[in-house]
């Protein structure tokens, strides 16, 4: 049985009378890339804030790396790196910001800053300007780099690809997979773009209106959501539909398969999946 790094049991949280989390149960195993899927306002960020101790919850329990009480959970949070939003000093550049956080986290190895800068592609001249001059994409990258300082055992990324261009999105996707494979890091990543996580995560949690509706693995998704498609040429569609209907087979719908925008984009400009 896999080691559980994070477990939430019946966690409830409200802001005033508005219930944001309505009894969330969630389990993240060691080595997982856990995709937290849900539309904006579903409760994903609140869930992360509760896990990180930035927000209090009224009911339920949380266990971080097996912690059984608040004190143990607080201590175990040192094993977490996270990116929930941009957090750095605008008047410092990328390297200075990361060096500040390296010290803050008690990481003695100075080369760690270069490692993460390279990992997120910020080892460029552009990164030498003050962080307040960064584009949204660069800020995202800097935040991700900060989360990865010191190779934490658990990484939490909240919407890490917001503001990134298609190549940036692809880079983050690859980086997440690389860090997971190379270091065995457990990663929880949230997004409201389903396709984004589909390519990356091993397990999924679907959040909707403060409830974790379902947790499933890639394997579950393949078997449970299986649809068989029969490809026919454009001219034969009507004939095929008639043939199936005449034989008592219900046709749910027909659609033309097209190249996805993502595929088209990368086909046009190059790059993308390597």
């Amino acid at each position, binding site marked *: 049985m896999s080691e559980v790094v994070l477990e939430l049991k019946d966690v409830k949280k409200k802001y005033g009378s508005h219930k944001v989390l309505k009894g969330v149960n969630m389990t993240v195993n060691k080595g997982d890339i856990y995709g937290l899927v849900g539309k904006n306002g579903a409760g994903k960020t609140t869930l992360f804030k509760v896990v990180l101790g930035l927000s209090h919850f009224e009911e339920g329990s949380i266990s971080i790396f097996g912690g059984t009480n608040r004190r143990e959970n607080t201590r175990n949070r040192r094993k*977490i790196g*996270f990116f929930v939003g941009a957090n*750095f*000093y*605008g008047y410092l550049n990328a390297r200075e910001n990361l060096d500040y956080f390296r010290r803050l986290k008690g990481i003695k190895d100075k080369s760690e800053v270069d490692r993460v800068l390279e990992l997120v592609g910020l080892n460029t001249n552009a990164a030498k300007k003050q962080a307040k001059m960064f584009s949204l994409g660069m800020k995202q990258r800097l935040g991700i780099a900060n989360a990865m300082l010191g190779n934490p055992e658990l990484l939490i990324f909240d919407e890490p690809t917001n503001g990134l261009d298609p190549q940036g999105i692809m880079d983050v996707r690859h980086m997440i997979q690389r860090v997971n494979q190379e270091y065995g890091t457990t990663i929880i990543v949230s997004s409201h773009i389903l396709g984004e996580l589909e390519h990356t995560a091993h397990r999924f949690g679907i959040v909707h209106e403060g409830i974790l509706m379902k947790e499933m693995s890639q394997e579950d998704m393949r078997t449970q959501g299986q649809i068989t498609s029969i490809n026919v040429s454009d001219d034969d569609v009507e004939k095929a539909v008639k043939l199936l209907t005449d034989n008592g087979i219900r046709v749910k719908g027909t659609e033309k398969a097209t190249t996805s925008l993502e595929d088209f984009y990368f086909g046009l400009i190059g790059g993308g999946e390597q």
Partner: protein
Amino acid sequence: MMRRIVLTDLRRALKKKSFIICTSIVIVLMVIITIVAVVKPASLVGSDETSGKALAFLNNISIAFSMIPFLVGIPVFQTVFSDDFKSRTMQMAIGRGMSRRRLILARFYEVIALLAEVYVILTVITVVTGLVLGATFGGLGVVIGKLWFDMILIISEISIAMLILYMSQNTTGGLVMYILLVADAFRLILVMADMIPFLKNNGIKLSNILPGGVHGIAKDYLFGHVPTLSDVTEIGEDLAEGSAEAMKRILDGTVDVNYLKAFLYTSILVGVFIILPLVLSQAVFRKKELEF
């Protein structure tokens, strides 16, 4: 972990332009005071031990120190707290497993360290210049002691402002409170209230319940036997009527020097206006929602 956080943030703060500029202004002010004391013909008559120029210098030095709450206190407040809220570095520390209680303490220690750093620089300048100009160690000790005692008041005002800051999670609110305190705004209102006949007749001074009031009482008990340099100036120039009041009290032996009472009032200042606001800050901030 707390020590690491304090030291890391101090390194950052000491490199911050606004802090460096404001500290430099105070130092420049000290240099100007020194130059004035050296160049200007001595307006004070020195004693056998202390030169007139040294007296002039020490007399003016309090001007530079009196700027500290504004010129240093405000940038310290901004550097430590505003950046913390604006850059959300606090969230980083808490998310990494630092308790909120310890985080507030860490920030408080940073404030003390930054203030102390400026005080040390000014003290060194004062001592060196004073000695060069012909002041005695004893005289310098008293002047410096009084100035360092004022630091307790600045710390208490920052501590009270911290309570507003952590309660509202709004740096502007905290900063406004700090400025009102150092500008003695609340005290001035209460001084007016002291004029109410009932309070006056019963010897009740509401203005004394504020940190500035308690600090003033403690300072009187501690340094009351030492004439201020303005006393000396006035006595030196003209021994007429009230100008020599302080000296007369000293000569008459009626001055109320009481180290025990000084300790008591200092304890009240520290306990009520530094520790209590800190503890309350920790309590109100315990369950605050932290945004990203």
